[in-house]
């Protein structure tokens, strides 16, 4: 007995090779892909899509129908991606929805009351939003209160200020109209409203590749800019999370703020920046919708904070922080948008709407989970 030293008598380098063979099972490509949190939500999206293909009016899956689903999904999605980053960073922002209304008011006032040019008004609105986001962040950090309660206070405060401000700005109404007319035309406007790729779509329609109205204009005149913003934001956010130092800091701050701090991560700065980001995302949505609708009212963005968190959670973010992905939130928003618009394409009585919404969300998430477990062999 006893002399067993020959058992592991290789050179280290040889040994590593050997270990990799010995203590790791082979995993298939599918397993590898599905294990990424980014792609878990994809399964749910596929399930939901199949459901609607089976039950909904075929016009849902025409080009126009898809744009119709993606355009609310994209507005929600911009918020959801920002909320996901913040949740990964370990905090919540419940003031996003109110921020949409407040930014809408600020933006409208800059255009209509002070008469600033569009570019200046947009820039100024973002500055105000970033300041408010920073204030949120600083309050959370300095008071060490949970962000839930701090941003909840701002949910009420900003919503209330939007009401007061609107009444003051319009002389008593809770709705401000005519913002669209003041915005004027030009490149800046085209970046924030209307459709992108209009030329391409007319060309496609002219060549009968896509559907058109009897008068010759295509039924879909282009890709709404909000969708473009949504996709870009998802890409950038994913890149930041997975490929940059800031991304590592976000995961670390949310995973364990103390451990991160002890390792030299500037946790407070990271969190403050994330709060500024959510505020700016809310502002982006406000500007997109205000320019699109031409008006704003004190209920804009109502409960959007909630929907954004839902989309992020569907997309696999943990409420406790430190885990999640931007692409997950991207798919989460599309799932949420597809379910809520999709039901209008089906023959279900709208009284049942909420029952279906709830059941579909649950099914989508269950399916996500089921597939992931199947594929990765977790137990």
């Amino acid at each position, binding site marked *: 007995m006893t002399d067993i030293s020959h058992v592991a008598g290789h050179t280290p380098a040889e040994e590593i090779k050997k270990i990799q063979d010995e203590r790791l099972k082979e995993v298939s490509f599918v397993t590898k892909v599905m294990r990424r949190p980014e792609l878990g939500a994809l399964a749910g999206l596929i399930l939901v899509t199949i459901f609607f293909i089976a039950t909904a009016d075929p016009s849902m899956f025409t080009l126009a129908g898809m744009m119709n689903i993606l355009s609310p999904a994209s507005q929600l999605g911009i918020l959801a991606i920002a909320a996901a980053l913040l949740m990964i960073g370990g905090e919540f922002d419940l003031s996003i929805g109110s921020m949409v209304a407040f930014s809408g008011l600020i933006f409208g006032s800059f255009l209509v009351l002070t008469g600033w040019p569009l570019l200046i008004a947009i820039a100024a609105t973002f500055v105000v939003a970033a300041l408010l986001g920073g204030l949120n962040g600083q309050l959370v950090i300095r008071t060490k209160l949970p962000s839930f309660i701090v941003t909840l206070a701002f949910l009420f405060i900003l919503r209330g200020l939007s009401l007061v401000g609107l009444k003051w700005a319009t002389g008593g109404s809770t709705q401000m109209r005519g913002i669209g007319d003041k915005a004027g035309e030009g490149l800046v406007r085209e970046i924030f409203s209307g459709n992108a790729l209009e030329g391409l779509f007319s060309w496609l329609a002219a060549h009968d590749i896509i559907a058109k109205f009897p008068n010759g204009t295509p039924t879909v005149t282009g890709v709404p800019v909000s969708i473009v913003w949504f996709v870009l934001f998802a890409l950038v956010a994913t890149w930041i999370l997975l490929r940059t130092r800031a991304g590592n800091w976000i995961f670390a701050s949310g995973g364990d703020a103390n451990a991160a701090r002890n390792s030299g991560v500037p946790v407070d700065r990271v969190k403050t920046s994330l709060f500024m980001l959510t505020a700016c995302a809310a502002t982006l949505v406000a500007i997109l919708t205000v320019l699109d609708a031409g008006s704003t009212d004190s209920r804009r963005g109502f*409960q959007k904070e909630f929907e954004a968190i839902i989309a992020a959670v569907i997309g696999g973010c943990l409420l406790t922080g430190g885990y999640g992905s931007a692409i997950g939130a991207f798919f989460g928003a599309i799932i949420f948008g597809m379910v809520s618009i999709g039901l*209008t394409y089906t023959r279900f009585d*709208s009284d049942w709407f909420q029952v279906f919404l709830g059941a579909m969300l649950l099914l989508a998430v269950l399916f996500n989970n089921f597939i992931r477990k199947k594929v990765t062999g977790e137990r």
Partner: protein
Amino acid sequence: QQGSTRIIVVSHGQANDPFWSVVKNGVTAAGKDMNVQVDYRAPETFDMVAMGQLIDAAINQKPAGLIVSIPDASALGPSIKKAVAAGIPVISMNSGSDVSKGLGALLHVGQDEADAGRIAGAKLKEMGGKAGLCVNHEVGNVSLDLRCKGFAEGFGGKVMVLPVSNDPADIRAKVKAAIASDPSIDTVMALSAPLGGEPTAAAVKETGKSGIRVVSFDLSANFLKAVAAGEATFAIDQQQYLQGYLPVVFLALDSKYGLIPGGNVPSGPNLITKDKAAQVVDLSAKGIR
């Protein structure tokens, strides 16, 4: 199975809002009566952006007719114009009588919230009201805000808005608090009989003060009973059942025979006072009034 003609209704009121559930009942009944397929759609909250998207979704399905409410012409205008451009006949209902024609709708059924408020306010002023309270259970919902605003205009005197939630206990407590802290209040206006009117009437009764007039928009069986018992003064009935029923009938006839009325149809207001209250209790309990 109902006929193949399909009419889509997009409103800004959720299906579980008592006012809108009556509209929806009208829509459903008309669908049955006219043998057409009807779908009622509304966003989950008062959300103009979402409502615009619902109209777009409706247009994609190329219905035989589209019925919309227009609480915000700027936000909904483009979508409505798009429907018209796509050749879909549009009728507006409830709100938007002033902008309906301009956007290309065939006609408007219903009546402005502000007008209804104004008429009720004037009536209350006539009855001797000096200081009013408007109990708003969803501040920021433009149609409710307009009801308050109209009431204030018609009433003339001092009007305070009391923001409350949907919760009866909360409404009762706040109404009592408002009356306790401002003894001059002699008129209380609630904006929805089942949600605001009933707890408001109960609260006023509990304060033990006599001579405070309670009125409410819309109908509910219990509130009507309070009216009949003299605990509340009157209820403002827009007959919103008609706002759902008539446009469907008009569009169905339009698609079948090309028949359509030449002008707007006012559906209200109709003040339900003590003498009429008892008759409508049952209809209200069934969601028709």
